[in-house]
């Protein structure tokens, strides 16, 4: 197997599906000639033509909204939000239209669509480029929300999402585009949504995370191991569908849990995870479930962003708190 970066894995999944399924069509800002600002679509317009890899005007609502119409016509549109933060410009189209069209039309118009959106911090982007809005989409029924943490999952889950008849918001950690590297099968394969991945087992505590935060969780777990704690890491992979069984089993094993994400604490998806865990595994809980998240403030300018996004140290401190509770 070849080692790929996450952005290479994403590109290869897009290329393979463009090749395999002529209904697939990519649309977005700067995705064509420029190959995407992160090069996720590099070379695809040359290979598949400007009618299947389409540079769009600077207007998120119509990038997503026209994708709704493209889907109604029988195609599989893959709109790219240059940054998840600018999904807010299309929020009414995503939560109000994409997510509801199948239901609204009583099944006539399915929305086989994947909305790709990079997000996440620590890379000194300008304001609004790093925002982690996943909970707002996970709270929009009709949508599925995928959050891969490895290059392998990025390819397998994106392929799965492209073949899923339901609309999927596919969030890509921009910090991980090049930093996250692992072995990715060349051949066609899919990773189902809604099945969490056990990154490492642990008897004392389990950290539940997704996307780039999984990397932080792993590092913290290693550091904790050095302190003599057995800390497991569960990678959720997708928020909707949510793998409640995996949450139950992981917590049943260790009795203690920590949820971790890059979004602010209040009403972040970590709250849903805590609520689900205590519903599923209340009686095995030996301590309050900890939450490590960004602060309840807007994503700050670059000089302090590394203090804002949860760090290995903050996770470690939280691990100790939960273990000592």
């Amino acid at each position, binding site marked *: 197997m070849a080692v790929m970066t996450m952005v290479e894995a994403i590109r290869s999944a897009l290329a393979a599906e463009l090749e395999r399924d002529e209904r697939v069509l990519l649309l977005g800002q700067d995705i064509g000639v420029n190959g995407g600002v992160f090069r996720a679509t590099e070379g695809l317009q040359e290979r598949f033509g400007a009618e299947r890899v389409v540079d769009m005007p600077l207007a998120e609502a119509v990038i997503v909204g026209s994708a709704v119409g493209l889907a109604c*016509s029988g195609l599989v549109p893959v709109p790219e939000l240059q940054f998840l933060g600018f999904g807010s410009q299309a929020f009414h189209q995503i939560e109000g*239209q994409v997510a509801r069209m*199948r239901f609204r039309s009583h099944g006539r118009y399915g929305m086989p669509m994947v909305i790709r959106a990079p997000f996440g911090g620590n890379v000194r982007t300008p304001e609004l480029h790093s925002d982690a809005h996943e909970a707002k989409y996970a709270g929009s029924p*009709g949508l599925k929300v995928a959050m891969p943490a490895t290059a392998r999952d990025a390819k397998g889950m994106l392929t799965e999402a492209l073949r899923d008849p339901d609309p999927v918001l596919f969030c890509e950690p921009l910090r991980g585009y090049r930093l996250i590297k692992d072995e990715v099968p060349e051949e066609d394969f899919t990773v189902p949504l809604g099945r969490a991945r056990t990154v490492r087992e642990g008897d004392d505590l389990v950290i539940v995370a997704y996307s780039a935060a999984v990397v932080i969780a792993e590092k913290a777990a290693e550091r904790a191991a050095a302190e003599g704690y057995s800390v497991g890491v569960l990678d959720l992979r997708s928020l909707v569908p949510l793998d*409640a069984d995996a949450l139950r089993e992981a917590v049943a094993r260790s009795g203690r849990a920590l949820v971790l994400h890059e979004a602010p604490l209040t009403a972040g998806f970590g709250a849903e995870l805590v609520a689900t865990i205590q519903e599923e595994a209340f009686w095995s809980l030996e301590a309050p479930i900890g939450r490590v998240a960004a602060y309840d403030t807007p994503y700050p300018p670059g000089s302090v962003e590394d203090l804002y996004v949860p760090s290995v140290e903050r996770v470690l401190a939280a691990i100790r708190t939960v273990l000592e509770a």
Partner: protein
Amino acid sequence: MSTLPAIGTDEPRCLLAPDGTVAEGHVTALDDAALLDAWRAMLQSRAIDERFFSLQRQGRLGTFSPVNGEEAAVVGSAWALDPARDWVVPQYRELPAMLRQGYTVTRAVQYFTGNPAGNFMAPGVNVLPYQISLAAQIPHAVGLAWGLRHQGSDGVVCVYFGDGASSEGDAHEALNLAGVRRAPVVFLLKNNGWAISTPVHRQTAAPSFAARAAGYGMAGELVDGNDLFAVHDACTRAVTRARAGEGPTLIEARTYRMGPHNTSDDPTRYVDPEELEARRAGDPVARLRRHLQAKGLVDDASEEVLTAALTAEVDAAVAEAEAGAPPGPEAMFDHVYARPPQRMAGQRAAATGEAG
């Protein structure tokens, strides 16, 4: 730009005068059969408005927005389409256009009684569902037209939206994209003078909405929306251009909402009764009636018979819709996902009492 029709920024084009006479030298593309068909659709719309309104008052129907006054704008445009390959993307006040495409009155009754099945378009019915989120359907129409063309069809999409909806960002983004992609779309902007209580002069300072076409590099036309012939003529030319790959057209049909915004609106709070009276003189149905009577195609007697028949049809549809079993709890879950997440499946089981 020279290829694009000039835009009359204040004088709507009129072909069928209020007195029912046709403009010098104009020959409508609608033959007598088509004319009578359109006439029937306009009377049907009136019959539906009336019945639905009283059903709502009896609590048998939910909120409903009558077409009353806009029949020529809706029918004139819809009759320029080929239901077999062209599409209608409605807002919520264009039932006659949806029916022409194959949607049924029975489904409409279901829709307005809050039955999810009411928004189902049977296969072959080229219509998108009712749109409540104003202007959100306009990007859909552009994508649909783009997708049809991408797949080799020569179908054209006619999307309806109001003077109010035109102020939404979605309208702009969609018009601009349609221009860039030369998508085969007819943008039918029904300017009925009102967005609930907001008069059009508070909606925009533009001399006309048609004047916006130039800013998107597309053809624009301003027509008398109470004039079946003018609307049909402009729309036919727009459809021809779109089919030929010559791109989209923005048509502003100037009409007037003769009734309340919807069944829960009280227009006496904001509509000047004198203005309303004056506008009633422009009634598109009365105008077409004069024309058809002068042509000897209809008379009061035939109209009475037809109206009675249409009303009976509506009643039959109402009966059919009401005869159906009311939706159960499963209606909350059906069609939300093709592959439901485990959690929603569990909720469904709990709500319906089925095994999960």
